[in-house]
């Protein structure tokens, strides 16, 4: 008969295994970048510090990028924390609730005197991430089969990414400078009237031209009038 200590230990081993596998699934790129042994060491460290507040195993690991930024053994890999942030956002977008396309008929019914108060919303689970490193290339090269001669230049400059999904696929899009500014404004709930008055560099493109394109590509998924925005 197994001693009680070993029986309790079996639960400990099982929990470690489940959470470790969960981290591997959410952060496959990080896993490939640092290797199995390093991942085991990191998993053990985060398991000692992490507290899960959700019944969903998939929710575990939200704090991992922040943990990584303080984990001394990886401080020399400056891009690793940003890659982990990207992976977490991808995981969130991948599991975000389905959402229909923006209701154009409802939008057309908004009287012109209320247009100033229109607040357009990004898809559920969408997020913006900026990095000093080409983390989208690091992500792609480690998740999508590519020729082995692909080389990533870590000094190629910063990158800005919109991570989003439409219920069928999850995407990493690279908006223009103007697009980035507008996406940030939409993500912050800035109403349409204020957006039109702000001094964005539209590069010759008007807001009236940009909006239909963004609705069409799925970046704008919903709208409310300003008073209806949740506090």
């Amino acid at each position, binding site marked *: 008969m*197994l001693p009680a200590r070993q029986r309790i230990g079996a*639960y400990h081993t099982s929990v470690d295994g489940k959470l470790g596998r969960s981290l591997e699934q959410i952060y496959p790129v990080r896993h490939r970048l640092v290797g199995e042994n390093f991942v085991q060491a990191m998993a053990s460290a985060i398991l000692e510090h992490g*507290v899960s507040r959700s*019944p*969903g195993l998939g929710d575990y690991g939200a704090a991992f990028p922040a943990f990584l930024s303080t984990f001394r053994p990886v401080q020399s890999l400056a891009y690793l924390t940003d890659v982990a942030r990207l992976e977490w956002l991808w995981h969130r977008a991948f*599991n975000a609730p389905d959402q229909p396309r923006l209701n154009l008929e409802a939008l057309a019914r908004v009287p012109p005197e209320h247009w100033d108060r229109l607040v357009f919303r990004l898809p559920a689970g969408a997020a913006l991430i900026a990095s000093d490193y080409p983390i989208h290339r690091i992500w792609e090269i480690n998740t999508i089969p590519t020729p082995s001669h692909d080389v990533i230049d870590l000094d190629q400059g910063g990158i800005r990414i919109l991570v989003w999904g439409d219920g069928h696929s999850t995407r990493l899009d690279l908006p223009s400078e103007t697009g980035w500014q507008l996406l940030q404004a939409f993500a912050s709930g800035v109403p349409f009237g204020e957006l039109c008055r702000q001094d964005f560099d539209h590069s010759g493109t008007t807001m009236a031209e940009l909006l239909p394109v963004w609705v069409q590509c799925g970046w704008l998924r919903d709208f409310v009038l300003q008073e209806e925005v949740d506090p």
Partner: protein
Amino acid sequence: MADSNIQGVGLGLRPPHYADILSSWPAIPWFEALSDNYLGGGLPLHHLTRIRERYPITLHGVGLSFGSVDPLNQAYLKRLNALVDRVEPSFVSDHLAWVSQGGRYFHELAPLPYTEEALEHVAERIQRVQDVLGRQILIENLSPYVRFAGSDYLEWEFLSELARRADCFLLLDVNNVFVNAFNHDFDPLAYLDALPAERVKELHLAGHEEEGSFLFDIHGRAVQDGVWALYRQALQRFEQVPALIEWDTDIPALEVLMTEAAKAEALRSGRPVP
């Protein structure tokens, strides 16, 4: 909800098999989806929705934490209810376990003391969940590695009385009974005989691992001979109850699971075992 549209031997639905299922639509009578994997949405729920169009589905979860003294997680229950509305599963099930304490989740199915107090507590929580979901649910037996001193009931007595008080059904994991009987030295047939047959609506089959003189329920290998033998006994006791092949770690190709399911079905229907 005593009747269901599932029959025969189904498979646990796992992400590595989505592509095979969605391209070949294999001859599998039903799938059991892990509800916790579909509470968000996105691509997993999209896949499940497509599979649901062709197959009956049951939902099996680990997050209701019936044995915990934490309040029922209403946000989780609301998401589960929405998933049930969308998928319209034949059964909804969870475990006789607790997975949280003080709002901290440890993602492991922890066992309960089989006391009168625990029985009252769990039965009341199951009833509340059933009220929200508007249906009777199935409760699955665990393979606890520890037992508590001072229990008022044997495990099978506890389960039987729980099903009666909560007016719920039972999901009998045959592998867990086998593992428990070995680890805690009791007669597994006594376990089967004691359960109310009319309450047992589904069987689970899975593999375990032996380490020294102890068995561990790991769901990572084929069903072993001893479990197949006990399954035969369970079929005599529970007759046409549907069964499921569960495989959660080191998941093999779909064909391997289908071979296991074919064996379980052959035993059910009295045909030669492949």
